[in-house]
């Protein structure tokens, strides 16, 4: 990158952070964010400890991630990396946050493949773990919903989505496009119930 200012106006002037700093910073978060909720780890690591971005910027970037496809944690890594050091920053941030979990899952899948059918206990343990995982996903969904479902129409859109996917067995893509378009049209400009924070 030359001395030229960033072409797209940044939210703020980021402190000078090297690519190695970014990689290591995200690698640490990627390796220690046990128990889901990586976004909370990102916030305390990036805003609190390292002070790479302001909290308002963090919230703003998070709202972009929630609207776009892609996982919130990896999208946040890309956006923060881009703010700090452009495309290269985004690439090393993404690699850093994904690497530890990916290596762990590769090892887990290899071990699982090796044990296939040989051990009744493993199936039983994983059955217990998967029941807990369902409870975990439902809790996360409930917490999100409690915050963002504020009107009756929101519940209708949630119901339509669930019915389309789980009862009518339509593809997720079709449901996303149809119900999504309907919901966006419902909240079209001029009909927004409350002004969404800029």
């Amino acid at each position: 990158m030359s001395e030229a200012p960033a072409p797209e106006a940044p939210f703020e002037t980021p402190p000078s952070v090297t690519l190695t700093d970014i990689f290591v910073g995200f690698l640490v978060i990627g390796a220690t964010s046990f128990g889901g909720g990586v976004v909370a780890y990102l916030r305390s690591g990036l805003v609190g400890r390292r002070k790479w971005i302001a909290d308002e910027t963090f919230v703003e970037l998070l709202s972009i991630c929630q609207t776009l496809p892609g996982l919130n944690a990896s999208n946040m890594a890309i956006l923060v990396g881009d703010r700090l050091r452009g495309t290269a920053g985004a690439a090393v941030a993404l690699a850093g946050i994904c690497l530890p979990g990916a290596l762990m899952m590769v090892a887990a899948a290899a071990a699982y493949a090796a044990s296939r059918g040989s051990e009744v206990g493993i199936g039983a343990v994983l059955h217990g773990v998967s029941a807990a995982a369902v409870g975990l996903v439902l809790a996360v969904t409930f917490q999100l919903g409690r915050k963002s479902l504020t009107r009756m129409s929101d519940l209708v859109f949630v119901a339509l989505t669930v019915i389309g996917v789980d009862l009518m067995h339509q593809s997720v893509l079709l449901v996303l496009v149809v119900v999504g378009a309907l919901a966006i049209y419902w909240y079209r400009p001029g009909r927004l119930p409350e002004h969404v924070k800029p």
Partner: protein
Amino acid sequence: MSQLPALIAVFAYLSLLTVGGGMAAFPEMKTLVVDNHHWMTFPQLIHLYSVGQMAPGPNMMMIAGIGQWVAGPVGALAVVLAFFLPTGLLTLWVGRLWNRLDHWPWRASIQRGLAPVSIGLLLAGAISIARGTITGVPSAAIMVAVFGLLLATRINPIPLIGAAAVVGYFAFR
């Protein structure tokens, strides 16, 4: 290795469905991975997904496990790149455009409209997993206990998952 193109196509497509969270893509992942390509059985997919809940980092790193299962380390790498590159590039682009869209009135409409749809997709994904997992009273009890404890306390989910593993060892053998 002949599975690589199919793996890349499947996971690049799935990544586009993860609006709101990785769980949104789960029903489609089940259809493609289990029913169409027969890469693994539904219980195996659920097992990998569940182990993935214990891994750190973005919550769908279990996809690397699927790649490893189907085509070894190269498969894992191919799946991770296919899953993160398309949406990553989109995010990079929109992230830079976002400020300029500030005065575009539909920006707020899209954000507001997609919020309930993304929650619906998460819920649909959870239901889809529950169909393969909640098979009787013991598994339902584990699910309800974890759900209740997470909402009532601020406990980290990892010890709860560990406890469920122990309960599962005795309940499901």
